[in-house]
Structure formats: C-alpha cells, structure tokens
C-alpha cells in the first residue's frame, strides 16, 4: 500500500471514506446479501417469504431453460471474449511496428461501439439482421438468396447472430488495449528477437504476448464478464427467442422476478451469475498477475 502518507489523523480518514463506503454498502453490498437471503426463500413478491433452503438452486439449475441459458452464456463468451481478444491481438501486433498517420481517427471509430448505449446497438443490429435488412440485401445482391433469412428469428442462427453483435462491441476495444500495451514493450526486445533470427510468429509469442500480459488480463476479464452478464442486447434483439434459443441468465432473472413472480428462483440465478463473475474476476487477476 501507499507509504507516503503525511497525514496521520486516523479518524479524519474515516470521514472522507464514509460517504462513498456507505453508498457502496447500502446499494451494492446490502442488496447482494439480500439476494442471497431471497434465494433461500420461496416468494412471489407479495406475502411472507417461505424458507426453502437450497431448493431454488436445485430446481433452477436442473431446469432445461436455465441450463440452456448458462450454455448460451458459454457460446456468447466465445463471441464476446475469445474471438475479439484473438482478433485484437493479431491486428494490434500487425499494426504495432510503425507509426501510422490517422491512427487517431481509426482509434475513435474502433472504440465507438463501447460508448453507444447497448439498447441502441441492439436496435441497429435488429435492422442489420432484418429480413429486408443490409445483410440479407447483400446476400441477395451476390446471388446467395438461399442464405437470406430473418437471422434473429432463426432457431439455428439467432444465438450466433447475437454473439456477433458482441464481437462487434468488443473487438475494437481489445485492439486498442493491446496497441497501448505493445507500445510499452521495450523496443530492444524486438531488436534482440530479430538478431536471434526470430520470424514474426516467434516474435509474437516470445515478445509481444508476454509484453501485453496485463492488457490481456484486463481484456479477458471485461469481455468475459460482458458476455456472462449480457442483457441489454438480448432484450432488444430477441428477448431470448425464438423459443428459448437465445435466452441468457440475466434475462431469466428478469423474467422470473418481474414477469413470473418467482423472486426466490430469480435470486438464486442471480447468485449463480455473481459467483461466476467473481470467479472470472479473481481467476483472471491471479492468472495475469504481473510481478513488479
């Protein structure tokens, strides 16, 4: 921890920390504990909650609907995290070795998906995937009419279509993160690799990849959690459909708590989701820890 503190007035420090800490405890930590409590009860939102122990967890985790929601999360992680991180690594390492004019412009554009409201993004992609939308129009224009379909309404394709929105959201972000990481690698390391006769691929694994380890950790943490918690895009594009082919845990939480009146079950899924997120957060922090 920081050792250059000059003020030793202990009590005063609490006054400075207290407002932020109480906001966080009241509106984040306390609701989290409440969620645990709800998850152990059967409650419809009115009346008295009935203690049921772990029964909500058992029921929900064995329900096909929730299982498929969790499975869809895994698929979405591939699209939200693995593909963008790989794309970002490859493109960033190809771009890194020289200064390019106009990079600022490209950076602005490539980061754009990160700031636009996910609801708006969902709306844009609803149109992209529409039966008369740009994707199908392009397919028809190049003679692939047979491939044209309402992508978000297709049982086989809807999940991948939603996943691709995730790739669109995070690939540029990953690339920009990695570019910043690569720019901090000691150029001497690249020169040394050159002298050793390393080709671009060995150079990538020997110099670039270890050099961007902290960025890799951050990118994976953010994007995997983004895939796990995804709600806005799914809500705006498919609402989990057709059938349950694109449902995700966050959507099941919403449905159970605010549509079906199964508050305890919704809370149980929420706790499972939080556990997954915490495991990812702590796991990545451990995996990508850098020693100073």
């Amino acid at each position, binding site marked *: 921890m*920081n050792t250059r503190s000059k003020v030793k007035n*202990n009590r*005063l420090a609490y006054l*400075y*920390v207290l*407002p*932020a*800490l109480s*906001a*966080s405890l009241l*509106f*984040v930590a306390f*609701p*989290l504990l*409440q*969620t645990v409590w709800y998850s152990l009860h059967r409650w419809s*939102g009115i009346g008295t909650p009935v203690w049921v122990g772990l029964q909500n967890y058992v029921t929900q985790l064995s329900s096909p609907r929730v299982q498929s929601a969790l499975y869809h999360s895994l698929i979405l992680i591939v699209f939200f995290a693995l593909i963008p991180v790989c794309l970002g690594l490859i*493109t960033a390492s190809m*771009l*890194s070795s*020289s200064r*390019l004019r106009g990079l*600022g412009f490209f950076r602005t554009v490539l*980061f754009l998906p990160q*700031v*636009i*409201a*996910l*609801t*708006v*993004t969902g*709306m*844009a992609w*609803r*149109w*992209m995937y529409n039966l008369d939308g*740009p994707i199908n*129009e*392009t397919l028809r224009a190049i003679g692939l009419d047979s491939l044209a379909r309402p992508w978000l309404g297709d049982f086989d394709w809807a999940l991948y279509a939603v996943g691709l929105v995730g790739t669109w959201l995070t*690939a*540029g972000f990953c690339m920009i993160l990695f*570019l*910043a990481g690569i720019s*901090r690698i*000691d150029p001497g390391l*690249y020169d040394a690799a050159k002298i050793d006769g390393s080709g671009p691929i060995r150079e990538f694994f020997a110099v670039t990849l270890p050099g961007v380890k902290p960025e890799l950790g*951050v990118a994976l943490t953010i994007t995997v*959690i*983004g895939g796990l*918690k995804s709600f*806005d895009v799914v*809500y705006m594009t498919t609402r989990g459909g057709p059938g349950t082919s694109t449902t995700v845990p966050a959507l099941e*939480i919403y449905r159970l708590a605010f549509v079906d009146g199964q*508050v305890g079950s919704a809370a149980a899924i*929420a706790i499972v*989701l*939080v556990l997954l997120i915490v495991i990812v*957060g702590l796991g990545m*922090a451990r995996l990508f820890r850098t020693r*100073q």
Partner: protein
Amino acid sequence: MSILTERPEVAPDTEAIVTSRPPSRRFRSVRRAGVSGVVAKYTILGLGAFLVLVPLYSILAVSLQPRGIPVAGLSWPADPQWSNYVDAWNTGAFNVLLSNSVMIALPVVVIAVFLSVLSGYAFATMKFRGKEFIFAALLIGLILPFEGIIVPLYYTLRALNLTNTMWGVALPEIGLYVSFGTFWMRVAFSQTPPSLVEAAQIDGARPWQVLWKVLFPISWPSVMTIVILFFIWSWNEFLIALVILQDPASKTAPAGLGAFVGKYVSDVPLLAAAAVIVAVPVVVTYVLLQGHVIRGMTQGAVKE
C-alpha cells in the same frame, strides 16, 4: 493523440485491477515497414472501421426512409424523411425521456464524483486502521453488474417509495460507480508530487484545504475522466431503469426505447430515428472528449 505514445500511468500497487507496468522508453526503434506493409496496415484499419460503421450508417439511413413502405437495405434515401425524427420525438415523448435521463445523470455525476474524490484522497494520502479491508470491500462494485442485485433493489426501493423516481435509479448508480471512482482518484492523487502536499502542510494547510486547493486542481484531468464516464454510464444504463421506472412519465431514454420496440415492432424508420435520438448525446460527448473516455475505459479497472 497517437495511441503509440499513450501509456497507462498508474500506481504500482493497483496491479491486480489496473494495467500497470513500469514506464519504459518513449521511443520505438525505427523499424522500416515496406510500402506493402503500410498498405496492409491501412487495410486492416480501414476494414475494422468499415465493419464498425456499417450498422451505425445503416440505422441512420433507415431512419430517414419513408415510413409504411418496404425499406431496402443499405441505400441512402433519395428523399430523406427528417420528419421521422419529429414523429419519433412526439410519439415517444422524447422531451420527457431525455429530461428524465438528464435529471438522473446530473446528480449521479455530481455526487458520485464528489464521494470518489473524498475517498480516493483518503486512500491515497492517509493511514487508517482497516484501510486494506475497506478498499477490498469497495472492490466488489468494480465487477458486480446490476443484473446480480436487481431483484432486491426493486423490492427495497419499492418499499421506500422510490420506484418511478429519479433517486430510485440515481442512488444505486452512485453506489456502484463510487467503486471505480475511488480507485481512479486514488491513483490520480498518488501520482501527484509529494512535495506539493508537504509544502502546503508547512504553510499550515489542513487536509481539507490540501485536497481542494492543491490536489484537486492538479488532478483535474482525472476528475474530468470520471465526470464523463459516469455521465455515459448513467445515460446508457438500461436494466435498472427498465425495472425501477415503469411509469412512462419517469422513464429514461434507453428504457423508453425499450418500450418503443415493443409497441412499434415493424415501423423500422420510426424505431431507428428513436434509437439515433437516444445515442446522440453520448456520441457527441464521446467525439468531443474521446481522449478521456478511451483512457478511462482502457486504463481503468475491470469495469466496462
């Protein structure tokens, strides 16, 4: 600002959550890339930018198409129907939605930034018992999404008569954002030269004065970053607005858009115009202040 000259500047003790590395040389060795290499690089960048822009362009294009007739793909309308925006604005009551969004974002930004500055200052400059433990307790807010706590938030806020009010959304947002803000401001204050604080203390400045007269002014760029990020996050927040604000008169712009989709499913130009209206304030903010946004979101913590 070139990305190649940008480095995360963070204190070494935040390694777990912030991308931190010792500063290295600013200069890269000159490595010549042939003309074909440069072409390949611009091709990658151009293709990436193209793929990002296509959906955004297409929603703009379709928002200007005539309503009620089949719309064709990507083409820019021959006769742009700007009246679609007027119709979307009126049918969606966007004057109400946008002002609700502002009325929530403003207090969230002011209060969350103020609380973050205070706690970041204590964590950066003061010693106190339980410091590490309290810091760790704040950490959960960095990765916890509203999806995880939305269920009790709704019932608690309803019991407090705060559903359908701006505070019902603003208070949880403040509670969540102060985690990132505290981390961010702690790093910023840790990086100020200790001599400045010492000089002020020798002059008899009290901690409160040291913060507002010395540290706050020189850390202004870092404060600006969280001002902008909190605004964007609050503006874009969907789930909590969807759940807490069910009365149409209290909805925020993204929540209103969510309701709009359900009502006008097939009126693509109208929906597209509504989406563009929701996006514009944040996009304008981003384009004007993108340096802050990108720095905050890439160097910040595991909080998107």
